[in-house]
């Protein structure tokens, strides 16, 4: 998808990079998609029956198409040459941890392995899933209400974190290759990538032996049911704005809330008052008022509303990719916006997801 602002072809960030994506996981295929979005030529190699993500929910109502597969693989090509030939010219290989290659990669190749767990640790033989990883990461233990079961989250976010980790590692290895002339093996696991996002769990235990749970969040957080929707606010600053939006000016003179430290200590009392007021207010009004007063707040918005929203329209979050003659797909567009001194740089999804070739695919490896 080239930008209408950019008539002349201009370099894209990863122009000229050749990638063979042999991975079957969400993490591996998302790493491949990120490479494709920035201009790499990414070939997806699948077994004859198709890669497992083609059968992973969410599926189309007739069960024939996976929206997950589509999202992970837009912008990739399907294999049109034998695997050995593809590997011969490759800069980057993405593959499942431990999956063999038919020929050893060339010394210049960045060979990226992706798996659930490190191959030599105590979990090496374990089976991963989004919930398994969030349970081990500490995130699940701190998600939900203390009087109910912990909540794992949604979807495949641990794997998306891993795919992003792999993308970063691959580009860092390519950067280093310019100095050394050599590729290397890089590895990303869902276990490590998810643990890395756990923030201060380890240091908090080390500093003072405490830990965060679902019992209480130690910050200026409130989740409020307004008349028509839920609002999440985080009032780290601008206390007067918060009071005024909810018509609680009397709290400004209340000695329990004089300083930031006082407010933190007595925060449950604040939330109680906010709850009473919020119930009669419209969520959009609450968010608009708080944001005018520089207090961070957002409405809990469903995707039905979001995809139709003015924000998404103005920001061109969605686009059609592909050739109308052979079929187009809707895609989430760029991950980030790149400009240089000559103007905008294309960093968008370049095309639809590959169709499964009819008959024996030439590049089939497994």
């Amino acid at each position, binding site marked *: 998808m080239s930008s209408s602002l950019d008539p002349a072809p201009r370099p894209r960030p990863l122009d000229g990079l050749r990638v063979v994506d042999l991975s079957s996981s969400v993490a591996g295929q998302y790493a491949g998609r990120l490479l494709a979005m920035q201009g790499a030529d990414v070939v997806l190699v699948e077994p004859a029956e198709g890669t497992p993500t083609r059968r992973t929910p969410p599926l189309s109502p007739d069960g024939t198409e996976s929206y997950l597969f589509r999202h992970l693989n837009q912008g990739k090509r399907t294999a049109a040459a034998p695997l050995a030939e593809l590997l011969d010219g490759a800069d980057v290989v993405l593959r499942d941890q431990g999956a063999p290659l038919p020929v050893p990669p060339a010394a210049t190749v960045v060979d990226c392995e992706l798996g659930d767990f490190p191959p030599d640790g105590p979990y090496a033989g374990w089976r991963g899933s989004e919930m398994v990883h969030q349970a081990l990461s500490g995130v699940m233990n701190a998600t*939900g209400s203390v009087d109910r079961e912990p909540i794992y989250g949604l*979807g495949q976010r641990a794997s998306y974190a891993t795919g992003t980790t792999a993308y970063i590692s691959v580009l*860092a290895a390519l950067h280093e290759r310019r100095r050394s002339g050599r590729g290397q093996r890089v590895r990303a*696991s869902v276990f490590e990538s998810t643990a890395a996002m*756990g923030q201060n769990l380890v240091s908090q235990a080390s500093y003072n032996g405490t830990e965060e749970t679902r019992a209480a969040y130690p910050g200026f957080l409130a989740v409020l049911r307004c008349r028509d929707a839920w609002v999440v606010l*985080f009032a780290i600053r*601008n206390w007067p704005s918060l009071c005024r939006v909810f018509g609680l000016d009397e709290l400004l003179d209340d000695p329990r809330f004089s300083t*930031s430290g006082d407010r933190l200590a007595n925060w449950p009392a604040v939330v109680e008052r906010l709850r009473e007021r919020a119930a009669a207010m419209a969520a959009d009004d609450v968010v608009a008022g708080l944001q005018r007063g520089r207090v961070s707040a957002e409405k809990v918005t469903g995707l039905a509303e979001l995809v139709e929203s003015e924000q998404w329209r103005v920001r061109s979050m969605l686009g059609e990719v592909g050739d109308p003659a052979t079929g187009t797909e809707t895609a*989430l567009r760029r991950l980030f916006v790149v*400009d240089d001194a000559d103007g905008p740089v294309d960093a968008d999804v370049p095309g639809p997801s590959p169709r499964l070739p009819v008959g024996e695919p030439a590049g089939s490896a497994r």
Partner: protein
Amino acid sequence: MTAGPLSDVRVLEFSTAWAGPFAGRCLAHLGADVIKVEAPSHPDSWRGTRVGGAPRYYPDLDPGDDPQNRNMLFNSQNIDKRSIALDLKVPGAGEVMRDLARTADVVLANFTPGVLDRLGAGFTALSRVNPRIVVVEMPAFGPGGPMSGHQGMGKTMEPATGMTGLMGYPEGTPVLTGPALMDPTGGLNAVAAVLTGLELRERTGKGCRVEVPQVEAAAHWIGEYVLEQLATGATWRPDGNHRDGWAPHDAFRCRGDDEWVAIAVATDDQWRALCAAMGRPDLLDRGATAAQRLADQAALGAEIAAWTADRDKVEVAERLQAAGVPAAPVLGGREIAASPAMRRAGMIAELDHPLVGRRAYSALGFRFDRTPGGHRRAAPLFGQHNDDVLGGLLGYDDARIARLRATGVIADRPTADTDTPRTPAPPT
């Protein structure tokens, strides 16, 4: 330890709290020389207050005399960086900034849009002194839309992405993810942007500006639901731990106080293995197919809960994993800090810090067989590397550094707490 792959890259980091500092820490782990630039009047908010502070953020629950250099939050996210305290609003600071930019490859900032430009540290200004500079900004939202001026925090960005509407208990009470998943998500996406910008520079010979709107970038992590919504007009409705295509899929209470095991059955084989492990062949037929298990998930879950209730969560998980069933203990922070798997994976770094001593920190998930990189030095004290950077890197002599100190261009102590507004409120 062998240097990381980015050992020839220098980064100037202007960022606060979690997402931006996490990104800078990733770059440092990858080998980059990351110089954190803080304003004395606006230190990184995760340094906390000058006096006091919530005890849980400090060594042995004691904020001590110098809490802004002892805060566990700051010290977790700023590992391996150098710190200089530069007040860009003081005359004379602009020249220092330009000299720094001449030596740098990357500027990384997580300010509200426009702040970097107003400080004279935006792409246009810096590319005049260094045409190869890559400037990465990571606002909550991109410009132009009705939400573009919104203040974003990890906790509020999650509902804005649409994620919160997809998770939680079935009756609709929203649930937010852990301490805040959006911060490290935005941080990882910003690191991806830095590497992408450096690759573009190799192809054009010129620097660039990369803007990573954190909420927009995070939408890719629920892309499959966005596409489903667009194609069918509907998508997943939150239902606790239940999940499309998996059943049973839930957390089950175990022996002890608030102890749980997560069990995720995806296939018929896994169901048979679970029934065998529980010694409940009578349940086999009730869940023989995925459709049966989905339809009867509540009742089957009650049977599993009865089995786990008096058992240890780790033993249950190990037994089920040995039988081929995806399962895991729901771990808390102390358990993770003590976990042999974390240590074996290199996910815990023990580092010496002059004010808090030797402490353990979470490491990162980048793995290279030839250029491993890694965490080497604890987080810097505020302004710890003022002389090192100005003298050693920029070549300023002692008299010049003394003048900068005397005029307040650089400082050795923060001059404010951290919850003051960074920008004045606009007229309402």
